[in-house]
Structure formats: structure tokens, C-alpha cells
């Protein structure tokens, strides 16, 4: 039988990558659990609250988006809308051209990965510089992130040291401290050269029009100290109604992502720098982009748009841990990606990723850790159903043919006979099983002894006894 692509990927994945991914994600799980338990008597209540706030916002997105837009404009931000990736890229290019910029320093942003912004601007001849340490390394390697919070979870220090050596960043040295210091030295020169800095955005408060960016390294802050123009690319779903709500989200984001109470740098930006400030952007643009989010909003999976990109669901997911982020063949990996990626791919891209919702054992761990309480297992089931009704071939690969089963299950008489006669299967070697799916299933599992008919007999006896008692 053919296998799902993700299984095949996992089978051939190098052992050291597998181990790196497993160790990296496992440490995230325990840190998260410990800090939430130490800080709150009822962390679950906060998770549920955060989910309700985000769900409410999504279901009133028209109102909040308009409010945020007006506030941001009043604060001196130039607000743009982008229907899709192409539109976003064109608008970004236009701003960069107007600023006559050559170097653009970019802070880690999944949104820009989604529209492949780096490739686009590099092809146009711009010096695009990723400044998050992990993303910087990925850029040197022409690689892609495999986790939303820990982009190079799949790499080890020896690989990184080789990359630095190859790119003239010093002789081979795999000490994390040395690697970090070299990147620090190299990148600060870039920050000062960069006329434009690009960021994503974690949240926007509709009430005040404030956007929030969090980083641990301080890269977005350095970008916002070095450059004269700031462009923030933010999905339209990143809103919360009020500043107070930001507190709910921030309290959960750091803890869920990295086991920190707060991310080191939490920056609230409501416009260009103040008049008294000598450094920082004098011009600020926010590009609110859709890229199929409205389709997700219209679907029965809109809950996934609550996501605050903490990565907790991938850390805890047994499938992610075995297969790594790249196995998901899309920007967003793990349980989040299994739901979001096929949906964001739009009508044209959907069939190619329709198998992702099957990359789950439906164990439910992802929902338990999700800071916005997204019912990921339910959404995966809804998407499996969608694949079935839309006859998405990819999703069907490796699925046993259930025709025989459905025949049996809908004909009681045939069922009874089958149950009894299947007792003959006991003692038959697995590879001689007459039913193909059973043969496949037993390749790595053992069947318990067949006891067909026993339950029926027991039930009959039981009923007799009970009638007798009455």
C-alpha cells in the first residue's frame, strides 16, 4: 500500500535531525507546563478566556478591523490592505522604491515567509537581511524554518559552524556563544545600513491602534532603532478588541512558547518615533493582508484563525516530533499547519496539501496546550471530511478501502455470520489475511484473538437472566 507523504518523509529523516527535533520540542513542553502551574491556580481558565476573546474578535472582524484602521491612521501610521501575497509584495516594493532603500533588515515574521517575500525582493536586487539568529542561519543555508518559534530546531551547532565558515563569518567554531557573538557583530552593521526595517506583528489592539511585537533577541528593536522607515506586514486576524486584552494574550504567549513569563522585548508601537527621539523610523506603514484568511473565516474551521503562533501544539505533537516541521511541506507545521496550511493554500493549492489533516493521531494534546484553546482535533476531522466530500486524492492515499466494512455493518445477518466465521482467522499467519487492510495493519501490530459471536451469546444470556429476575 502507498504511504502518506509525511510518513515517507519521516521514514527517511536523518537520525540526528529527528533527535534534535525531539529534544527541542520536548523541552518546550515541560517548561510550559511548569511555569503555568507555578504562576496560576487556574491556567486553563485563562486559556479559555483568551480563546473566547479571539473568537469574539474574529466573529466581529469587520467592526474591529475598521476600528483598528481608523485608530492607526489617526496615530500617524500609513495603513494599506493587501488581498493576496502578490499585492502585498507589490506594495512593499513600492514603499522601498520610494525610500530609495538598498538594504532591508527583517525581523522574524511568519507572514513574510507565507508570501515568500525574501525571494521576491532578493530577485529585484535588494539586500534582504534576516536578523533573528535562527532565521539568519536559515537564510545563509537557503533553508526554511521548521518551527514557528524555534526556526532552526532541526539543525545542530556543527552544521551552523560549517555554514558560518563557508560564508566568511570566521573559522570553524561550534560554540553557541561564539556563533551568537559573530552574528551580533555582523548584523549590527546591517541594522545601521538598513534604510527600511520590516517586521510582522503579534497583535493589534483595535481600541488604541497599537501593534505589539515580541522578540527575545531584540532584533526588531534594533531594526526600529536603525532604520528610518518601518513596514509591518500583519494578517487581518491579529486583532484583539482592547489594550486590556493584550494582557491576556501576552501572559500566555511567552509562557506557551518558551516557558517565559514575558518575552524579553515586548514593544507597543502606535506610530513613527516621537519628535524628541533621535533614532527610529520617521515613517511607518502597516500592511494588513488577507491571503485567503477570509476563506478560512467563511469555513467551518475559522477557529484556527485564533492562533497566536506560540508553537506549543507542535512541541507536544507526536507526529511533529517524529517527522519534523519540513514534513508538512508548508510554512506552518505541526497541528497548527495541518489545519491552517491546506486552508491558506486556497482552492488551487488545497488538493496538494489535503493529506495534512491526516497527520495526526487525534490524541488531543494540541488542544490541551493551545493558549487560545483551538479545538484542533475537531478541525482536523472537519478537514478530513472536506477531503472526502471533495474527493481530494492526496488525502485518500494509504486509507484502507472500507467498502467491505460498510457492507457488513449495514446488513445485520451478514454481520452475524461474518463474526462467527471470522473465528477461522485465528491461527492464520498475518500475511495470509484475506482482507488487504488487515494485512497492512498487522505488518506492525498484533491482533488479539478473535472472539466473534461471544458478546452476542453473552448478551442473550444476560437478557434472559434479567427477564427472569423481573
Amino acid at each position, binding site marked *: 500500500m502507498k504511504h502518506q507523504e509525511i510518513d515517507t518523509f519521516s521514514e527517511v529523516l536523518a537520525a540526528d535531525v529527528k533527535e534534535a527535533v525531539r529534544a527541542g520540542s520536548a523541552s518546550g513542553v515541560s517548561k510550559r507546563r511548569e511555569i503555568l502551574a507555578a504562576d496560576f491556580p487556574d491556567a486553563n481558565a485563562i486559556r479559555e478566556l483568551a480563546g473566547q476573546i479571539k473568537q469574539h474578535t474574529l*466573529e466581529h472582524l469587520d467592526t474591529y478591523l475598521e476600528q483598528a484602521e481608523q485608530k492607526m491612521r489617526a496615530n500617524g501610521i500609513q495603513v494599506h490592505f493587501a488581498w493576496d501575497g502578490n499585492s502585498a509584495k507589490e506594495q512593499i516594493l513600492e514603499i522601498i522604491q520610494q525610500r530609495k532603500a538598498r538594504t532591508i533588515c527583517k525581523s522574524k515574521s511568519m507572514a513574510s515567509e507565507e508570501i515568500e517575500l525574501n525571494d521576491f525582493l532578493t530577485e529585484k536586487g535588494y539586500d534582504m537581511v534576516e536578523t533573528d539568529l535562527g532565521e539568519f542561519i536559515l537564510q545563509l543555508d537557503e533553508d526554511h524554518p521548521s518551527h514557528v518559534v524555534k526556526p532552526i530546531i532541526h539543525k545542530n551547532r556543527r552544521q551552523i559552524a560549517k555554514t558560518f565558515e563557508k560564508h566568511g563569518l570566521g573559522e570553524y567554531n561550534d560554540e553557541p556563544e561564539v556563533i*551568537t557573538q559573530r552574528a551580533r557583530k555582523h548584523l549590527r552593521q546591517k541594522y545601521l545600513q538598513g534604510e527600511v526595517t520590516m517586521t510582522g506583528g503579534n497583535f493589534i489592539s483595535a481600541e488604541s491602534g497599537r501593534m505589539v511585537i515580541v522578540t*527575545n533577541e531584540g532584533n526588531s*528593536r534594533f531594526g526600529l532603532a536603525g532604520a528610518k522607515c518601518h513596514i509591518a506586514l500583519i494578517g487581518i486576524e491579529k486583532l484583539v478588541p482592547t489594550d486590556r486584552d493584550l494582557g491576556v494574550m501576552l501572559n500566555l504567549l511567552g509562557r506557551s512558547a518558551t516557558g517565559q513569563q514575558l518575552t524579553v*522585548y515586548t514593544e507597543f508601537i502606535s506610530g513613527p518615533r516621537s519628535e524628541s527621539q533621535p533614532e527610529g523610523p520617521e515613517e511607518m506603514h502597516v500592511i494588513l493582508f488577507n491571503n485567503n484568511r477570509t476563506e478560512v473565516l467563511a469555513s467551518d474551521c475559522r477557529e484556527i484563525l485564533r492562533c497566536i503562533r506560540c508553537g506549543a501544539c507542535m512541541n507536544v505533537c507526536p507526529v511533529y516530533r517524529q517527522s519534523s516541521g519540513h514534513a508538512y511541506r508548508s510554512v506552518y507545521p505541526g497541528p497548527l499547519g495541518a489545519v491552517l496550511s491546506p486552508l491558506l493554500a486556497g482552492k488551487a493549492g488545497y488538493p496538494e496539501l489535503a493529506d495534512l489533516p491526516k497527520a495526526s493521531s487525534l490524541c488531543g494534546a494540541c488542544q490541551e496546550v493551545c493558549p487560545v484553546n483551538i479545538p484542533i482535533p475537531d478541525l482536523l476531522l472537519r478537514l478530513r471530511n472536506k477531503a472526502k466530500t471533495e474527493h481530494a486524492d492526496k488525502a485518500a492515499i494509504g486509507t484502507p478501502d472500507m467498502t467491505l466494512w460498510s457492507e457488513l455493518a449495514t446488513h445485520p445477518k451478514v454481520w452475524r455470520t461474518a463474526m462467527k466465521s471470522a473465528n477461522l482467522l485465528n491461527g492464520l499467519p498475518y500475511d495470509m489475511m484475506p482482507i488487504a487492510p488487515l494485512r497492512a495493519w498487522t505488518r506492525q501490530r498484533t491482533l488479539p484473538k478473535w472472539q466473534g459471536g461471544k458478546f452476542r451469546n453473552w448478551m442473550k444470556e444476560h437478557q434472559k437472566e434479567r427477564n427472569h429476575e423481573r
Partner: protein
Amino acid sequence: MSDDRSRIFAAIREALQPLQSAGKASPYPDYEVGQLTSLPRLGAEESWQAFARNLAAVNGHAYEKIEECAAFLQEHGVTEGYCDPELIDRLREGLGSAFTLHPEFDRASLERYSFGITKASGIIVESGTIILKDRGTSNRLGALAPWVHVAVLTEEAPIFSTMSEALAELGDDPNVIWVTGPSKTADVEGILIEGVHGPGQQLCLHLS
């Protein structure tokens, strides 16, 4: 593009219409911010002591005496740096003659500054956070690029007990940044390294 704007809004309205017209759109939840505070972190000490404990938990240092701060800097071999001109007179004496303080931050000689001293616009006790507001910070680079940052909390700067209180007082400054410890990463094999792009040492000096 205005075209994109109307398309997006139309698509959102279309997506939400069935929910909203059936009156099924989720309501805004009613909640108290009290549940968001970590009581163990808030502790029972005086607020400065609790702040110092929480800052230490993220590897930062809190001082109440200029001399202690000076000793830290000397111990770490950092003697030349940037200082907010409004603070120079108050600090010069306590720091002593071993330090060179530059009232201007010159981008061209970034590496000259091994420390940066700027004002804190407030602190948050619960998280050990230093608040920098754009109007209170004399130079964004001065507070970020040098290896050591000393945030000076003057008498007029507020001390917030909780994050929720601080959020309610963000005010109209265009840029407010909460700094909770030194810059750090765990990107390489999950190993914690401090001082990636920002300071490797984060200090807070309380003047009173």
C-alpha cells in the same frame, strides 16, 4: 490599495453574515484582570525588593546605590559609554573618575560604547520589567547597542505592581517597550545565550 480594502471588507462581511444575522456571533467575555497576575511573583515584600527578585530571575540586576552600579561596571571592564545628558550630573560623582560618559550617541562608532545609561519610564514589579518610553529614552540605540544597559529609575517614574496596571497606563507615547532581562536566544540547540542584538547585561538603578 483601496480596491483590496473593499474586497477584504466585503469578503469578511460575507463570511460573517450567516453568523451575525442568526445572532450567533460570540459575545465579548466578561472578565477580571486579577486572574492574570502571578501572585507568587508579586510576593509579599516591598515592591522594590519584589521587583529586584523578579529581575534577578531573568538574570538582570537591580541596584539602589550608584556605587554598586559603578562596581559592577568596573568588574566587567566597561568604563566608556553613552549617558543620557540629563542624567550625567546626577551620576558623575557617584560613578567616580574611572568612567568616560558621552552625552551623544554617534552611530559611526558603535563599538566605543560599552555601556549605555538611559532613563526608565517605569517598572513592573510582577515581571521584573523595565519600561522604556520613546519620550523618556534619550536615544534608542544608546539603550540597546552597548553590552551593558543601565536603566535609571528616577523618583517621578511610576512603579506598577502588575502587567495589567502598566497596560492601562501605556499613554500616548508612540513607542513603549517593556524590557524583561538581557537580550537572549536559545536558537542553537536550545542553549541559552545572552546578548544577541541587545545588551548582554541589563541593570536597573533606583535613584531616590
